């Protein structure tokens, strides 16, 4: 029995860790701007493509940091171009702008890559096969949860202990008062996008190591699921997003295991509806915003 469950559990934890890394980007941005950053899933995909191109021309120890830096720049650029001009606009306008940005990024990726699926480079060591309790899997499955937890602990420390973290907490609590306290809102928001995009880049490396090919629209689904994970854990809460990511990943993996692959996506959204109907603040959310 245990041997049957183990592969699904491992797969689920791995996917869950990747969702968690993307979900942090959503939850942080939503926490401060009250905006679903629809472009986040596409930033994640762009990171995948950047890695495809970077790994083809340069050694890994250059390409990995380079991809992370470029993804961060893209995230900050998206915020500057599409969200900053609409800071005082109604929320719906900003959301439409986010959808437009997602559309633009997808078309741009399609143009650059010619719409063909690109083979993701195999990362040495990370993609190697290992055997766990008689079940063979690639090492990325084991690395993902560990790396996720390490990154999240570091992030939580950053938010709790540092000055910029304090500024972020203040801004997510109350925009205007935070400004009155001398917090530079724009730089705090930029920093949020730096963290979110950086984690999305790491998440994309782990995700695509498992899936082998990248296409322009591949990020939309993980993006939406990661958002559900963020809502499930309580929007604005980083540990919540991580636990939500893991739970969704594991459930999905087991649903696929029972042969109902078609409904693994459906499950995620059903979960969203249930959580919003039963406990709208999510698992760890603070009861601050009006959601339902």
């Amino acid at each position, binding site marked *: 029995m245990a041997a049957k469950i183990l592969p699904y559990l491992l797969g689920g934890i791995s996917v869950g860790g990747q969702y968690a890394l993307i979900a942090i980007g959503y939850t942080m941005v939503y926490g401060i701007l*009250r*905006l*679903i950053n629809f472009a986040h899933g596409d930033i994640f995909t762009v990171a995948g493509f950047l890695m495809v191109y970077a790994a083809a021309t340069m050694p890994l120890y250059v390409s990995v940091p380079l991809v992370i830096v470029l993804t961060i720049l893209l995230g900050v650029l998206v915020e500057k*171009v*599409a969200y900053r*001009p*609409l800071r005082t*606009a109604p*929320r*719906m*306008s900003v*959301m*439409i*702008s986010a*959808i*437009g*940005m*997602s*559309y*633009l990024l*997808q*078309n*741009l990726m*399609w*143009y*650059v890559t*010619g*719409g063909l699926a690109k083979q993701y480079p195999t990362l040495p060591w990370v993609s190697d096969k290992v055997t766990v309790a008689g079940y063979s899997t690639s090492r990325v499955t084991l690395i993902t949860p560990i790396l996720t937890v390490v990154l999240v602990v570091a992030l939580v420390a950053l938010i709790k202990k540092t000055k910029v973290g304090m500024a972020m907490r203040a801004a997510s609590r109350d925009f205007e008062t935070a400004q009155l306290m001398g917090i530079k809102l724009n730089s705090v928001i930029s920093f949020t996008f730096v963290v979110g995009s950086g984690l999305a880049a790491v998440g994309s490396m782990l995700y695509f190591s498992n899936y082998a090919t990248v296409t322009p*629209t591949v990020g*939309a*689904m993980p993006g*939406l699921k990661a*958002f*559900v994970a963020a*809502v499930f854990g309580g929007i604005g809460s980083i540990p919540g997003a991580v636990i939500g990511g893991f739970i969704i990943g594991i459930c999905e993996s087991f649903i696929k295991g029972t042969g109902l692959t*078609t*409904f693994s*996506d*459906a499950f*995620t*959204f*059903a979960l*969203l*509806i249930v959580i*919003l*109907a039963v406990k709208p603040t999510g698992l760890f959310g603070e009861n601050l915003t*009006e*959601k*339902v």
Partner: protein
Amino acid sequence: MVTVVLLAALLALMLLLDNLPGVPSMLLTVLRKGAIYALVAVSMNLLNGFTGLFSLGQAGFMLLGAYTYAVLTIPVGSQASIYQQYKGGGVGFSITESLTGAMGGFGTLLGVVICLILAGIVAGLFAYLIGLPVLRLKSDYLAIATLGFAEILRALIQYTKLGPITNGSNLLYGFTSFSDFHLGALKLSTVMPFLFSGLCIAVVVLLINSTYGRAFKAIRDDEVAAEAMGINLARHKRMSFVISSFFAGISGALLAMYQASVQAVTFKAAMTYEILLIVVIGGIGSITGSVVASFLFVGCSEWWLRFLDNETTLKNFNAKLIFAIVFGLIVLGLAVVILRRDCKKGLPPLRRITAPGGGKRVRVNWSAIASIVLAVALLGWDVWFVISPNLKLPLLRSGFRMVVFSVVIMIMVLFFRRGLFGDSELDPAALWDSLRGRRTQSGRSAGGDRR
């Protein structure tokens, strides 16, 4: 009255375009697809613009409508070959076929109308069920939940156990499409989408101008106030959601008729996004805006921007020189406009200011510097392009059209947030008056009530 006359004239024009030789086929494509997109954009506008419910489920309801229509109208004879993956699949009857057999040409029309209405009813029924839990959510949560349900519907249609009816993820084809409509020797394949879509839009307009429509608008403007006025929030929201989905279902069926085939994978979230962008471009809360914007949108994406997708090589040096000069002037003009705007705002690229300590220092406006650098770089490239022997235009290749298109949309979304018409309507009667020379009103109406 003027409106009715204009619409009749429009239908006559379509009939003419359909049957005259030499009409570019692209024009007909744009007109047909534009008419269908107009209906779905209006249905989304009813929900997003008039009731203030931000829903992103339109593609899912279109999918339901398209499949309902297709499944019910595939001729019995071809069901075996279409459903070859699922032995004995198909419903075993075809509404249009039976009615055509019984009543001839009129039977086809009747069958199609019945199936269109059924398509709408199926979509509306699902909307009712989905609405029960979902409509309790607000703004972005509602958006995500409806988007999620649209994805669930897509997964459901492709579910292998439903294969005998939906043919799983395979194509459905062979059903009655627009090209099956004839009036004697006259082709009607552009008239029909205009007729169906026009009738549905007319119903939506009547609804919006009724007491229900006023209730919707009241909910959009202020839920609490609307409730205090005695409007049943849950009931009206549900009604708006179901009606919007009903028409989305019909438009999905029309889209199936236009494409002559349906496949579930094409009804992605990206489709909903496109429709949302049409609504935004036309103006949230403007029916005419949505209609005009869908023709513009379809025209741009299918036709006018096509040339951007083709690799182009200029004929000779003179053509290149003209291109380079035009390009240079555009870049220069834009740069000057941007810099002038910055200077007017009191933010020139470099400015000497008095520092708090009393000393002078230079303040830099980085975005202005960036635009200068970009403009200089583009002009430099322009000069290089003229000098180089290369005659091939850069960047133009497959996919560039959509990039340019989405950049234009982003510019619209960021800088022209009210869209073409804002939330007011283009009034054909007023337009008619102004065309006849009643100049007193022309400033307001002919300009599309830009305000």
